[in-house]
């Protein structure tokens, strides 16, 4: 009970602090939102993306799920994506993974966690696809980090294949897709693949050395 009370207390303190510097900080953002970014990230509590990037309210549209998955049957994600692309007209869609991701780790092992095992089936597929490459990496920690990267690249590819992004690209090179990863150890964001704005760039995701997703 005392934890939840703390939330309210801190909220009041923060609002008071902000309002002291800019009395209209909240009221002037209460109108229409015109965010530039759609952020698709992990539900992990250690990835506070707004704090990390310093975006103000109204600048970033956010969707988070376990292990930042983009699945073409996920109505929740598709609704967010459709609204962000077609109604809010966002310019950038970012898929962001993070090292130390519990979801990726679970998918790499054979332990069962219940319902979430179904959700992680896609990562398990990626694991199998890259079996040889991963085996070549000597230590477990490097294998884990590589899987986090590969998972992000796979999700960017999945994103590019959605009818929503495909139809947007038919109208122009917008939105741009980006794959990034967050290092929870040093707090920095790392670029994996940037500015995917058409099917030519999307298919490179499967072939380029660095961003190789397929075999």
């Amino acid at each position: 009970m005392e934890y939840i009370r703390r939330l309210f207390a801190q909220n009041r303190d923060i609002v008071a602090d902000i309002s002291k510097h800019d009395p209209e900080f909240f009221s002037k953002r209460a109108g229409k939102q015109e965010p530039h970014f759609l952020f698709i990230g992990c539900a992990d509590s250690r990835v506070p993306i707004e704090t990390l990037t310093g975006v103000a309210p109204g600048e970033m549209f956010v969707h988070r799920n376990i292990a930042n998955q983009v699945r073409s049957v996920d109505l929740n994600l598709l609704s967010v994506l459709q609204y962000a692309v077609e109604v809010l007209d966002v310019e950038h869609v970012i898929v962001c993974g993070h090292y130390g991701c519990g979801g990726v780790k679970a998918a790499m092992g054979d332990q069962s966690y219940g319902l979430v095992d179904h959700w992680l089936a896609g990562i398990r597929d990626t694991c199998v696809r890259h079996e040889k490459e991963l085996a070549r990496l000597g230590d477990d920690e490097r294998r884990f980090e590589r899987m986090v990267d590969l998972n992000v690249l796979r999700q960017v590819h999945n994103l590019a294949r959605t009818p929503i992004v495909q139809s947007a690209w038919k109208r122009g090179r917008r939105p741009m897709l980006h794959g990034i990863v967050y290092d929870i150890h040093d707090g920095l964001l790392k670029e994996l693949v940037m500015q995917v704005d058409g099917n030519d760039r999307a298919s490179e995701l499967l072939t380029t050395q660095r961003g190789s997703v397929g075999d």
Partner: protein
Amino acid sequence: MPTMVGSAREDAPAAVVVFLVALPLCLGIALASGAPLFSGVISGIVGGIVIGILSGSQLMVSGPAAGLTAIVVSAIATLGSYPAFLMAVVLSGGVQLVLGALRAGAISYYFPSAVIRGMLAAIGLILILKQLPHAVGWDHDFEGDESFVQPDGDTTFTAIGHALHAITPGALLIAAVSLALLIAWDTTGLKRLKLLPGPLVAVLVGVGINAALQRSGSNWTLLAEHLVQLPIASSAGEFFSFFTLPDFSAAARMDTWRVAVTLGVVASLETLLSLEATDRMDTHKRVSPPNRELCAQGAGNVLSGLIGGLPMTGVIVRSAANVDAGGKTRLAAILHGVLLLLAVVAIPALLNAIPLASLAAVLLYTGFKLAHPRIVRAMWGQGWKQFVPFAATIAAILFTDLLVGIALGLAMAFAFILLDEVRFECFTVTSPPGAVLKRVQLQEQVSFLNKASLAKLLASLEPGDRLEIDGSSCRVIHHDVLEHLAEFRSQALQRGIDLRVVGIDLPTPPPGH
């Protein structure tokens, strides 16, 4: 559909009625045109027989037209002689043949329905107003006049005023009896007597009453001025002298060609209007080919000009009388021509016994049917966009003449049509309300007239707005619309407007703006 053989029983009596109506009209129009009286009859004969055979219209009757009288009067004066004018008539027929060959008849698809109906109602009213004086024996204006200002200096209304002060009792009696007969024929079982149409009975009874008055020595007897006045040839030689050859040398003069083109174009327009109007009266809903009609009219005018006749067009009053009397096929029009020919050859004296008052009753009744209140009510029910051009056409025709009135009515109707087109939005908004990116989808065809609605949309944009115009489902976009889009886009960025055009290639805007 009725065939000429199968419906001869209806067509023959109708032909007699049309002939009776046509005879004084042919004479009256010739009189008003300042041409020999017989020239109107020649035109009627050719219009009936030749055009009847060549035309694709089953019900329209052709002959000398009141709408052309003003042109004819001034043309005869300009060209100096009637034979020279005849040359222009021949050439005008040529102009119509060319128009037909060029498929200019397609223009008739653009006559708005409200104007055609307005024209019919106006002609109905004109018939009533112009025939009222004839019905009471005031026969000063020529038969078939359709203009507000008459050659005798009266207007339509002052003539009625004069007529009511100088009622000829015999004429009024005959008109009243004829009218009563016509109404009785239509409203009682008598109309089943198909071989004896009401108008024919009315005319025969009119002749009978006058004959009875004459026999009894009554001073109500109608004199020659109140009767049909057909020129009577005393010998075969004199009869053929009624026919005149054109002055072929006139073809070398520019003036002749100018008259020919004017006549050709005006006669074609009047014909096409009559054709549309006649098709509308057809209970069998037959559609007449306009280009074939232009060619038929051209042939008719060439022939009429060659033998001394007035120019002709398709004419509403005779066509309406034809429909009214139960005519079914063009046999009726052809027979009416034959009857005109036979009449002047064989029985001119008999025809000169027909009282104009009887014919006035026939035309009054036809006029009432054309301008029936039911028609006005129906037009009112179609909304003001239909009713206003309809009423404007009627008023304009009543107070000027047929051609000027139709021109005004057409202008009014087209103004309404354009207004509708200009207001019509050529796009659908596909984004939900309040979307950051407003998206509009252009419809299949974006015409010049749609430019206004698109320009309005663009003009409403403010800095910071985003608009996507999707033209991927467009088949046709007018060049000016594309240019406007291109010009707007070239300055949109500077104004902070994010305009995206999708699915169409924009031209580079011309320099210097």
